């Protein structure tokens, strides 16, 4: 791996934590990582020395935004749904708190060489990696349509920002508090037709990814899905994140979500077995 592309393990520092809706946007000074970022990659964080904490497992987070040249040095922004013990501690950290960051990790979204039509489908905080993707796609001359979903307005990520980049933005919420009441599954068929998408990029819960991959296939589009599943290490060391796929040779195989993914071609994942394994 060439030195400017590979991941780094660095001593980072919390620059800010901002609550937006139900999420916390955590900005971390993480030298080198911003520069290497490509959309669809993630970082893993640890907060404590191994000698002090009873909980050694790092946690994975999508990179939502990077600023390679901010006034505080290179920063990355994460969108955190604070619920678990780890995430509650993370969002409570005061500015300047140390945090170890490893990344960018994993395979990014594959981007088309031609200026094609792209539909980006994101649900909740997991939509985070789609925003930098949208920018890069637009830079390449692609037409970008976006479908954002969430249970309610508070959990909807970045609708305003999406409108700046995308040609069309559709919002669906389960409770109808903003956009159309409904789900990704409801909205997809029409959107795929309307956007004449060549590629679907999806990020969200497994059920949503599965639906997006299936719908894409039905419409003759490629799909790229950003899978989120338990990752004990995130760095490819432990084999704790098996994903059942069909490889290029047509043979079924278990690969690692963290290193062989987290972005997979939607038609390669054996979706029905994802939860079982």
């Amino acid at each position: 791996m060439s030195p400017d592309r590979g991941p780094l393990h660095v001593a980072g520092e919390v620059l800010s934590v901002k609550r937006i809706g139900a999420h916390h946007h955590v900005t971390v000074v993480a030298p080198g990582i911003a520069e290497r970022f490509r959309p669809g990659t993630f970082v893993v964080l640890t907060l404590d020395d191994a000698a002090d904490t009873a909980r050694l497992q790092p946690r994975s987070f999508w990179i939502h935004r990077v600023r390679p040249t901010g006034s505080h040095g290179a920063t990355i922004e994460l969108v955190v749904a604070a619920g678990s013990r780890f995430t509650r501690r993370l969002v409570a950290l005061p500015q300047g708190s140390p945090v170890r960051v490893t990344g960018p990790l994993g395979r990014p979204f594959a981007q088309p060489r031609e200026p094609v039509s792209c539909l980006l489908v994101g649900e909740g905080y997991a939509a985070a990696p789609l925003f930098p993707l949208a920018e890069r796609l637009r830079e390449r001359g692609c037409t970008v349509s976006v479908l954002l979903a969430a249970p309610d307005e508070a959990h909807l990520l970045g609708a305003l920002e999406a409108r700046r980049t995308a040609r069309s933005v559709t919002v669906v919420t389960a409770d109808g508090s903003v956009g159309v009441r409904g789900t990704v599954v409801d909205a997809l068929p029409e959107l795929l037709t309307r956007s004449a998408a060549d590629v679907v990029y999806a990020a969200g819960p497994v059920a949503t990814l599965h639906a997006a991959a299936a719908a894409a296939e039905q419409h003759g589009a490629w799909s790229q899905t950003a899978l989120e599943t338990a990752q004990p290490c995130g760095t490819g060391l432990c084999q704790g994140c098996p994903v059942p796929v069909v490889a290029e040779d047509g043979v079924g195989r278990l690969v690692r979500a963290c290193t062989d993914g987290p972005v997979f071609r939607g038609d390669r994942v054996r979706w029905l077995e994802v939860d079982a394994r």
Partner: protein
Amino acid sequence: MSRDPGPVTGSDAPVLVASGCGGTGRELDALGGLDGIGGFVTRTITLDARDGGPRPRVVESPSGFRYAVGLQNPGIDGFLALELPWLVSRGIRVAVSISAASLGEYADLGRRLGRSPGVAAIELNLVPPDAAGAGLFDAREPFQAARVVGAVRRDLPAGVQLWAKPSADPGRLAETARALAEAGADAVVLVNGLPALMPDGRPAGLAGPAIGPLALRCVHDVASQVPDLPVIAAGGVVDADDVRALLDVGAVAVQVGSALLHDPTAAARAAATLRGDA
């Protein structure tokens, strides 16, 4: 023992990556995690490819991890074709961990690895704590463990070391170690993950700093009671101080496992610190 197998590590620091905790090596290398390392032990390889067990496979435990990976691996063919060449080209000293269903299979794996250039050692994972019911040869009794060593030893070229990693069972370790030494093991690896349960009741290994003081005892007891048999230590190592403590009680080299999941540069940093000492 009659043969002199040479040192168990390369010329670098006596710090190795433990089996099952270093991916294929490439992932660690991308993070600088192999820099200055004395050797890399692969995850356990079996004759045929294995899918491993269901999820969750690795869960946090107080100051450690419980794992039940179930020996997912590409089989010896896949390993030789896809993983060994990179490790060899990286110039790192490679020990290949193996497990098998029978003595014949063990011997077979040993022969194939013995003639594969770049394999410095074979590490026998005699009793994986997470593989109950995986159809492996039962090497819990010391004499059975010794039979595995004997079977692999027979056809192994002189230049390839044979390390035996028995069950982490403090009670009969000295007895086991003696049997392994007599059967021709060049070193014993202590300790494997301890027998444990996953939260859902599946058998698992327990590893990490939690088990460090137990590893210290096992290494001490075997090094003092079976002085002819080199001990390669593992269990709870996080930093150079932990490495030194294990060397102090008689280990010739030390493996780092769980700590890499928390910090992939742990082994490289411990090695660098130790070199700074010299």
